[in-house]
């Protein structure tokens, strides 16, 4: 409970720091945007779901640190985070199943588009990376909830 | 039906024992008596050989019914029936079940055609029989039972190891004649020897049997050692080594039997002595000798059960079994007394009783093969038998000084069981041909020649005379550590002091060795316990850090090993 007290005190103090609040508010959208850039640039250069997911989660966690866990819970309810993590994995494995239904091997993206395998490759990698990104972002946020939420329920 | 006849006899007993928990009252009793009969019927219609069974790549022969196995089967069934009858009034269902399982496993072991099957039932008898000891539910019995189990399972382990070696060497698991010189054969011989209570391997017998329940001892005396005798007869007939071993077996227990106070322990020693005759018979190995062995096993099972039953009845009624604590019981237990005397004269080999018939066979076989020394020793030993079993048991239990004990006669089922056994002793003694007909080899032997009868009677008379004299001069009170004095007067005059000293020295030596070994054993166990119980080093998991350290050390060790090995090779 002392932990949760200190948490609350931390947020109270944050209220009194307008510079941080303003900067964060301006900054966070760019963090999230950058995450999306890394996510979709992964198709052509360095980047991809792992990195993007972590960056995205970092943005969310920054938001929670400045404005409080409750504020983040409004944006991303823990239940929704949990579902997102599950859905991300399902998206990944779903692509695998789809390729099998399309007649290829598991995760043989070429099978996603019977006319143009190259197009299928693009689509497959896009979806898989999206799944990875969603999962990583959700799991990192969940981990944050797990520690930051400690004491609240006790 | 054909499926049942493919199974070895005895399995019926095992299966039947598993039904016991469902029965109660009269049905239970009827079932207990019916099972041995049913099983015997099963044996009678058993084919000569069952179909081989595939058991992870090995071919097992569960059923091989040749004359040797069949002969033992007859007597085992008879013993099972008598023992079940004796135990009938018992309320303890576990003992009933254990007894039947034990008998069933022992019978099934007789028909095992290969070493693995033999091993399986061999261990099964150990497991079932130990329950008969534990069923007494005393601390002493629990410990004795555990020691017994360790020895019995140990003999099974030796047997399995021997079987594996034998299989390696010959590629066959069939249980036939084995070579005692080969490592596998030697291990198997040792396994049989443990179970047959060879000298120095015998302690478990005297340790465990007297601790078993009243009825349990009757079962125990019938099966365990005789199964070993059967196995020896099958695997090592004609092994000369067995003759000296057997002669030793007939002799050394006499000393202990004479000085022992606990009557059931006296019988346990005499059991050992009787086994000696059979081991000699196997060592001689001629058809006559083998037949003698089987015949002796047959009659011995019956009269030894009879004696154990009588002593069990005494223990049941009096609650004590020390020779010095008994006496004068013939007044209150006349029937038991009578049956006990029948058993005693049978074991002593009095003509017209079963012991005479079978012992003579072995003696004649030994003489025929010119094992003169062994023959002479056996004769001398048989006089000793008379003293410790034939006279000591009935005399101190039922006569001697009147201890003032007034108890009830044994319960009726026990009396019937004893009566049946006594009748069997007499019937075999009078009509030996009945016994000879079931022996594995045809026997044309007439025990009742004048020479035989007179020789035996002389021997017995001298022994009885010696006993009387000793008593008369008060050299033979039960608590005295007396020596064995035999009919031979030279022997008697020259050696008593030496033997007395030797016996005493041996006892002292044994005691010292035992305490030293015990102290060592205790220290070892304490050490093991200290390190393996939870706060100890090996009984409690270490911290994660310690494992990290061990992982690092092991890694270093393996790197070093690999480096050295390859450096040496390169």
């Amino acid at each position, binding site marked *: 409970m002392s932990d949760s007290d200190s948490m609350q005190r931390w947020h109270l103090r944050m209220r009194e720091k307008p510079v941080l609040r303003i900067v964060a508010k301006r900054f966070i959208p760019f963090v999230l945007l950058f995450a999306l850039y890394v996510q979709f640039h992964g198709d052509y*250069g*360095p980047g991809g779901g*792992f990195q993007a997911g972590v960056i995205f989660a970092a943005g969310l966690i920054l938001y929670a640190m400045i404005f409080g866990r409750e504020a983040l819970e409004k944006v991303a309810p823990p239940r929704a985070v949990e579902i997102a993590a599950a859905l991300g994995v399902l998206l990944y494995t779903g692509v695998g199943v789809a390729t099998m239904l399309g007649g290829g091997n598991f995760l043989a993206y070429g099978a996603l588009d019977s006319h143009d395998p190259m197009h299928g490759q693009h689509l497959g990698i896009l979806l898989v990376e999206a799944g990875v990104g969603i999962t*990583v972002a959700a799991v990192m946020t969940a*981990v944050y909830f*797990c*520690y930051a939420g*400690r004491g609240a329920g*006790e | 039906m054909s499926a049942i006849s493919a199974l070895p006899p005895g399995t019926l007993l095992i299966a039947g024992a598993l039904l016991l928990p469902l029965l109660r009252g009269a049905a239970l009793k009827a079932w207990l008596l019916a099972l041995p009969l049913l099983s015997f019927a099963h044996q009678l219609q058993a084919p000569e050989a069952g179909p081989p069974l595939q058991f992870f790549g090995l071919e097992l022969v569960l059923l091989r019914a040749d004359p040797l196995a069949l002969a033992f089967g007859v007597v085992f069934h008879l013993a099972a029936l008598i023992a079940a009858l004796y135990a009938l009034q018992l309320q303890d269902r576990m003992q009933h079940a254990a007894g039947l399982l034990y008998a069933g496993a022992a019978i099934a072991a007789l028909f095992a055609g290969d070493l693995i099957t033999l091993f399986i039932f061999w261990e099964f008898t150990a497991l079932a029989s130990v329950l008969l000891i534990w069923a007494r539910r005393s601390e002493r019995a629990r410990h004795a039972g555990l020691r017994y189990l360790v020895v019995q399972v140990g003999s099974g382990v030796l047997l399995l190891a021997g079987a594996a070696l034998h299989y390696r060497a010959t590629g066959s698991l069939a249980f036939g004649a084995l070579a005692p010189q080969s490592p596998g054969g030697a291990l198997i011989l040792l396994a049989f020897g443990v179970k047959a209570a060879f000298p120095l391997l015998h302690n478990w017998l005297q340790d465990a049997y007297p601790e078993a329940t009243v009825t349990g001892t009757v079962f125990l005396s019938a099966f365990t050692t005789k199964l070993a005798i059967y196995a020896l007869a099958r695997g090592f007939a004609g092994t000369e080594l067995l003759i000296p071993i057997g002669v030793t077996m007939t002799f050394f227990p006499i000393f202990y039997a004479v000085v022992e106070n606990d009557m059931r322990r006296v019988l346990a020693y005499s059991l050992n002595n009787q086994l000696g005759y059979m081991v000699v018979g196997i060592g001689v190995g001629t058809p006559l000798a083998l037949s003698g062995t089987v015949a002796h096993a047959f009659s011995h099972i019956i009269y030894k059960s009879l004696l154990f039953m009588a002593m069990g009845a005494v223990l049941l009624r009096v609650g004590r079994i020390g020779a010095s604590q008994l006496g004068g019981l013939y007044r209150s237990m006349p029937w038991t007394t009578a049956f006990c005397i029948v058993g005693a004269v049978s074991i002593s080999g009095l003509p017209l009783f079963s012991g005479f018939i079978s012992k003579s066979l072995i003696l004649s076989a030994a003489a025929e093969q010119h094992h003169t020394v062994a023959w002479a020793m056996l004769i001398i030993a048989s006089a000793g038998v008379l003293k410790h079993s034939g006279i000591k048991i009935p005399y101190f239990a039922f006569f001697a000084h009147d201890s003032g004990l007034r108890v009830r006669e044994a319960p009726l089922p026990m009396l019937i069981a004893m009566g049946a056994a006594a009748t069997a002793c007499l019937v075999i003694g009078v009509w030996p041909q009945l016994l000879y007909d079931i022996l594995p080899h045809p026997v044309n032997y007439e025990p009742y020649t004048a020479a035989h009868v007179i020789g035996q009677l002389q021997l017995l008379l001298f022994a009885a005379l010696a006993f009387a004299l000793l008593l008369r001069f008060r050299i033979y009170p039960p608590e005295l550590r007396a020596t064995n004095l035999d009919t031979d007067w030279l022997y008697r005059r020259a050696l008593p002091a030496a033997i007395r000293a030797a016996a005493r020295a041996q006892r002292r030596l044994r005691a010292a060795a035992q305490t030293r070994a015990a102290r060592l054993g205790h220290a070892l166990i304490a050490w093991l316990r200290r390190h393996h119980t*939870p*706060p100890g080093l090996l009984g409690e998991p270490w*911290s*994660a*850090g*310690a494992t*990290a*350290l061990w992982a*690092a050390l092991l890694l270093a060790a393996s790197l070093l090993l690999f480096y050295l090995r390859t450096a040496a090779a390169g």
Partner: protein
Amino acid sequence: MIGGGLLHYWVVIALMMTGLYTMIARQNLVKKIMGLNIFQVSVILFYVSLGKVAGGTAPILKELAPGEPAPLYSNPLPHVLMLTAIVVGVAVTALGLALVVRIRAAYGTVEEDALRKLDEEERAERSTGGGA
């Protein structure tokens, strides 16, 4: 060159030993986790150094002008593998810390010797309680 061209090995080994030592010697569970992290990082460095090809450039495909020789790429595979290893490391750390949090809640301490003593006391209590 320092370390005879094997500098990266020495760094890896130094980190690895630091991590192992921390795990072995520290009683505090959080510090143990940190040791574990250092240990894992050393392996990641090891892999990353495996992928480096002397003179190689970042493994990004580019359009080649006609006649231009293909550039020498470093091996990207170890990096990709380490992506997975990092994820594993994060998961392990998160789970380990979560366990530490719950241990703290259940025992009130995160020092291993204190935990051990608490467990031993509990067992002693139970065995005497069970005997009575």
